[in-house]
């Protein structure tokens, strides 16, 4: 525990860090729109991600309405249903979660938490956002293109993705692939910034092992994303060529409507390898920032140092590395050598070890902590429970023999929504409730926050818990309607109605959250500089919201790790990272 060593220096001179050439905005346009300040870029990223996320939320409502009341709504035809599925999945995974965690939280928190004035390459950082926005616009354009957006499913498997009969075959798939290519280019620009800023722009005294776990999570996830997104890029470019130029990277010989297409010799499995080589790390690209943020939320709101900090860092790095050698567990039913299945099942189960270490450490941090059930803490607790839940079903699906019968059923849908849908979004909310006071200077309404939490948390369980049972019955995913199926009892239909009602309610609860965001901007309680009495650097800025350049004239100097809570003998129950040790007394 934080033992105050006597050989420390009472006060150390200010950091002799050369004044960096700061970007200065000269007009309204460069201050709020084409701005190179990471904090503004973070807000732009977050708002764009939330806006497109809302679209995906509405799409999920439409899907649920169809599943509960098949044939009732004339605007949901079978083609539309596939389009909704595809766009919902793609938006939520890439354009919402990835963009929000890395572009949103990453941009805001990395420079502040490591004690930098801004990102390493502010101009490239700005470009990153604008390319992301363009990617989102191209994606949305799919809705207005002839034939609508693609309905190939979020995995975009060829050959069906570019064959006629799949909705959006004309324009939708092209726009989708183009949008993904743009997203990856934009992300690479941002990602370079996050990595280099963590490596090169840390303030004096901020060693790697003094970084808050939030930064560790975002940093590792960014490194992973930089190495994993190229796989999607390659896949997207090759499929684009197949679609536009008629090459046969992924397209085998196909007879379509009695006509022999000009494709021959391509390999659909090649696409699956490329897609999942990106797709599995993607799960952790979303999860690792969540792990990091939740560690900080728990430590701060339980007023206790994080349990096993080193182990937490190592676990993050180990998960990041391992996640690159498990991809084929998404392809068990594509057919593979049984030894491969064994290999990938083993690596998949091994990942559970560092993940379990993290879960135990969160629980042990809570153990005998001074737990404050603030809204961020509630969401953090909600995350742990949900993540464990989703993780356990992952152990089922990681085993080949269990996976094969469960593949393509609602069990899988329930699993991944729990583990990489609901769990990370809990952290997104927790993070927003936690850092909103720093971003705006005002607190979010506590009452509205608690309503938001409880409805979302219980509602998410009402949606996804029953879905496991439907999956065990064998109810398939991606089906527009079930019709009369021998092994599906009528009660499944009633359960579907229940799930849909829950989904509508949870969706509505998000409106409470949005209202809270807007309302508190002007009506929220004044937050002050450090409302949560937290130790990390972003709470020690001279101004709230932090001014341009983040810090005053001098950069902060870091004297300790980020988790000095409830240190015995200390005046307060927290000691900021930039507070020197007291001068030794005799």
């Amino acid at each position: 525990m934080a033992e105050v060593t006597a050989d420390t220096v009472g006060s150390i001179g200010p950091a002799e860090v050369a004044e960096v050439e700061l970007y200065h905005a000269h007009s309204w346009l460069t201050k709020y729109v084409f701005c190179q300040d990471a904090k503004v870029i973070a807000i732009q990223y977050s708002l764009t991600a939330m806006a497109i996320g809302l679209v995906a939320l509405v799409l999920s409502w439409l899907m649920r309405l169809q599943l509960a009341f098949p044939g009732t709504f004339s605007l949901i035809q079978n083609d539309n249903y596939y389009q909704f599925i595809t766009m919902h999945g793609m938006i939520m995974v890439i354009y919402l979660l990835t963009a929000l965690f890395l572009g949103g939280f990453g941009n805001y928190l990395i420079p502040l938490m490591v004690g930098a004035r801004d990102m390493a390459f502010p101009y490239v950082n700005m470009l990153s956002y604008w390319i992301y926005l363009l990617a989102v616009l191209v994606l949305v354009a799919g809705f207005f293109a002839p034939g609508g957006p693609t309905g190939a499913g979020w995995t975009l498997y060829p050959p069906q993705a570019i064959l006629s009969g799949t909705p959006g075959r004309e324009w939708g798939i092209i726009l989708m692939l183009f949008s993904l290519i743009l997203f990856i280019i934009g992300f690479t620009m941002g990602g370079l910034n996050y990595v280099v800023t963590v490596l090169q722009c840390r303030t004096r005294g901020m060693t790697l092992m003094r970084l808050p776990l939030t930064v560790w999570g975002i940093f590792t996830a960014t490194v992973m994303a930089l190495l994993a997104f190229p796989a999607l890029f390659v896949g997207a470019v090759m499929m684009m060529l197949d679609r536009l130029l008629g090459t046969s990277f992924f397209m085998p010989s196909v007879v379509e409507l009695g006509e022999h297409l000009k494709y021959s010799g391509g390999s659909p499995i090649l696409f699956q390898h490329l897609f999942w080589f990106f797709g599995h790390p993607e799960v952790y690209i979303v999860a690792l920032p969540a792990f990091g943020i939740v560690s900080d939320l728990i430590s701060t709101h339980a007023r206790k140092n994080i349990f096993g900090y080193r182990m937490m860092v190592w676990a993050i790095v180990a998960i990041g590395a391992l996640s690159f050698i498990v991809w084929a567990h998404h392809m068990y039913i594509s057919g593979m050598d049984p030894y491969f299945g064994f290999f990938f099942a083993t690596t998949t189960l091994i990942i559970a070890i560092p993940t379990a270490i993290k879960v135990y450490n969160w629980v042990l941090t809570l153990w005998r902590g001074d737990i404050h059930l603030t809204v961020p803490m509630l969401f953090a607790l909600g995350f742990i429970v949900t993540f464990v839940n989703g993780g356990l079903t992952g152990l089922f699906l990681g085993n080949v023999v269990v996976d094969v019968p469960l593949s393509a059923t609602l069990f899988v849908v329930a699993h991944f929504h729990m583990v990489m849908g609901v769990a990370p979004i809990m952290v997104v909310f927790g993070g927003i409730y936690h850092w909103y006071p720093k971003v705006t200077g005002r607190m979010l309404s506590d009452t509205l926050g608690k309503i938001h939490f409880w409805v979302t948390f219980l509602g998410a369980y009402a949606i996804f818990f029953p879905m496991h049972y439907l999956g065990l019955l064998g109810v398939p995913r991606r089906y527009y309607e079930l019709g009369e199926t021998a092994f599906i009892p009528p009660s499944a239909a009633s359960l579907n109605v229940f799930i849909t009602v829950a989904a509508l309610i949870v969706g509505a609860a998000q409106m409470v959250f949005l209202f809270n965001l807007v309302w508190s901007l002007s009506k929220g309680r004044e937050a002050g500089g450090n409302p949560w009495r937290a130790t990390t650097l972003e709470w020690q800025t001279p101004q709230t919201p932090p001014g341009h350049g983040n810090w005053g004239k001098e950069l902060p100097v870091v004297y300790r790790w980020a988790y000095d809570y409830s240190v015995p003998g200390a005046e307060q129950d927290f000691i900021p990272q930039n507070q020197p040790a007291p001068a030794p007394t005799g």
Partner: protein
Amino acid sequence: MSVIILFLAVIAVIAGWWLSQQQVMAKPWLDVGSIVDPPAPIGSSVPAAKVGLGVFLAVVGCLFALLVSAYFIRIDIDATNGDATNGMVLRAMPIPGLLWLNTAVLVVSSLALQCAQIAARHGQRDALRDGLLFGGLSALAFLAGQILVWRQLVDAGYFAASNPANAFFYLLTGVHGLHVAGGLVALGKTIAKAWQGVAIGRLRLSVWLCTVYWHFLLLIWLIILALLAGWADDFIVICRTLAI
């Protein structure tokens, strides 16, 4: 996918070595009060742009490793389908003679930039300008040559859509060409600065960045050429026996 796994293993070793230099065994909860400066190997002494380029090259390397992986998987499918005894049906494409000339031009371009970098280090402005300009022009010549190769092949009836071998040829050369073109933008800016009379001290970093990028793209090109020309067949066979 053995190529990309191999590539990532190298990255992992580098990352692991770097982490081992970063006091990951430290017990941060005990060293309260002392300032521990970031250790030397990658500290603030290395310009951020150099680290940035390093990370970017890792991403570009990853991209090409994936393309090569895809190429290998594709060959493997031919082999297992029995389309050809050794899975080399893919190599239905001839290697035009012009490609060798282009390779030579790219080598010259890289050498010219190396000269420019040495000149920058010694403060020789004229040599620096010449080196940069010559490097840039020869890179342009390389791109023009590549386009010419494409034209020749198309005229000879080798279309991208004809078979996977052709498609991979156009894809690999095209993606490489785009990276050269992107580098030319950065090089163009550096050349403009050199001509505007910016102090050599302030140019050194840009010249270094361009040179390293150029060498990297040359290396990638040589690997691509080795694959397309069939020099790497033994390696492909090894990867196939690893069978990922």
